[in-house]
């Protein structure tokens, strides 16, 4: 994949937002550099407020960078013409709710310069594609959040773009809605489109993305293979036991011992996810009582820290 040309290229991008009167300016991006290759699903990952949306808005020409350079399909993002090859779904999109699904797509098709003759056909295809054919004549104010998100994807695709930018496409949706959007993203990829996706949900990254960049506090901390990154995710489980005999403690292996804290006959253990069954078996056999077993999911922050420790940028 690495030989493919870069569809999005961001070099040393910086942005500072002016605060109001008497407020300090906020630095949103510092020296951000990464690139997206043709045909891949690229995850732009970071906690809320890290600068994901700011970066995406710079790419969409909604915000101007203070310094650095960003190109999409080889064009400076301040141009407008190249956007006929770019689709964009903003976070929690809102559309003209006085329009029907069909009207809104026709409007966007017109703005995108889709020829009148092809417009209707294109709109019908898209409604079908995102599964909204039945709701095409209903006003958007009657739509559910998931339906709106699908309209959002449809409007991003109305002019058949080569690259699609999605800002938090799964946020605020129920599990079924999220699955539908995931399926759409996979289909986009299958159709040969490059997908750029902002997200803070790791499982989505894990399932969908070929490559990721991680941004924390306006700085890129990692760019590369998500699986390599996720291997660093240590999924631990906290186990609390009482009535523990000293013999049991000694029998536990060294890796567990490191995460041991004891107060009297009560101990708290942090063990790798895979070792939990083994531990509980031993503990019950030794007559200990299990107070609680709570899996610890890695937070993004901790994950990012690990990612940085493990070598930062590749």
């Amino acid at each position, binding site marked *: 994949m690495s030989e493919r040309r870069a569809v999005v290229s961001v070099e040393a991008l910086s942005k500072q*937002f002016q605060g109001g009167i008497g407020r300090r300016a906020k630095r949103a991006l510092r020296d951000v550099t990464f690139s997206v290759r043709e045909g891949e699903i690229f995850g732009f990952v970071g906690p809320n407020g890290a600068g994901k949306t*700011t970066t995406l*808005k710079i790419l*969409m*020409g*909604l*915000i*101007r960078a203070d310094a650095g350079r960003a190109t999409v399909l080889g064009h400076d993002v301040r141009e*407008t*013409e*190249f*956007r*006929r090859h*770019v*689709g*964009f*779904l*903003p976070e*929690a*999109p*809102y*559309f*003209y709710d*006085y*329009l029907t699904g069909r009207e809104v797509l026709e*409007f*966007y098709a*017109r*703005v*995108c*310069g889709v020829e009148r003759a092809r417009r209707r056909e294109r709109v019908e295809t898209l409604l079908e594609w995102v599964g909204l054919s039945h709701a095409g004549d209903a006003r958007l104010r009657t739509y559910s959040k998931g339906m709106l998100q699908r309209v*959002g994807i449809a*409007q*991003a695709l109305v*002019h058949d773009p080569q690259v699609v*930018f999605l800002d938090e496409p799964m946020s605020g949706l129920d599990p079924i809605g999220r699955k539908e959007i995931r399926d759409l993203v996979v289909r986009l990829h299958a159709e040969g489109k490059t997908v750029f996706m902002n997200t803070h949900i790791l499982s989505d990254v894990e399932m969908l993305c070929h490559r990721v960049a991680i941004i924390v506090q306006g700085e890129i901390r990692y760019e590369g293979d998500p699986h390599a990154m996720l291997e660093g995710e240590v999924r631990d489980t906290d186990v609390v036991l009482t009535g523990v005999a000293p013999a049991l403690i000694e029998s536990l292996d060294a890796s567990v011992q490191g995460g041991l804290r004891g107060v009297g006959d009560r101990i708290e253990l942090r063990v790798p996810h895979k070792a939990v069954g083994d531990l509980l078996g031993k503990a019950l056999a030794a007559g200990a009582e299990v107070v609680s077993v709570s899996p610890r999911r890695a937070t993004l922050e901790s994950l990012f820290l690990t990612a940085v420790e493990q070598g930062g940028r590749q």
Partner: protein
Amino acid sequence: MSGIERILAIAGNTVREAIRHRVLYTLVFFALALIGTGVLLASLSYVERERILQDVGFAAIRVFAVAIAIFVGIHLVHREVDRRTIFTILSKPIARSEFLLGKYFGLLVTLWLQIAVMGAGFVVISMLAGAPLEVAHAAALGLVAAEVAVVVSVALLFSAFTTPMLASLFTAGLWLIGHLSRDLRALGAQSESDVVRRATEAVYRVLPDLSAFDLTVHAARGLEIAASDVVMPLAYAFGYATLVLFAATWIFERRDFR
């Protein structure tokens, strides 16, 4: 020419949004009611009743046309930003200037439709009351439409960079000053100081001269209207609105949509 197609798309959608807006109908209804109350007011006088009737009607049209221009205009622009619909539009192959122009023409067509509706109410009332209707009445309404073209451009200018509240205040303020700019200039011209005279003259040149668009008195009095009384204000409105739209575009193109 796809730029024009895009401008038309935005304009068409703006008209559609405005037309599906309930507030608009309320405002037009009030305007029509006010035009109707002219009949009552006129009945208080024993002479020149038709004149009073038409004064009230014209005033209602002017006030409501401008009020709708300011509040609906600013509201519709701000809504695009506030509800983030502008994100999806500006990410399309459309220049910001095209978006702004599309909004402008959409608003203008909406307002002109309103003026047409209110004008129809005016005509009906005038006919019922037996008041004269001349070409001058059409010219007066035409200049109200031109005034609105200037006011909407100013509303867009302000909503390109400030909050809707402030934009409404600024636009309403500029409208008021625009109706006084001649008087201010006349006051300044009486000054002893050369600086004051030049300053007021300069201020007069920069501020919109909105009293140029008021031919309603001429129409209601049956005064003679020269062609230049109509053509020059139209040219002035065209030039002034174009310049204001330039400024609005300049600001709008530099704005960050956070």
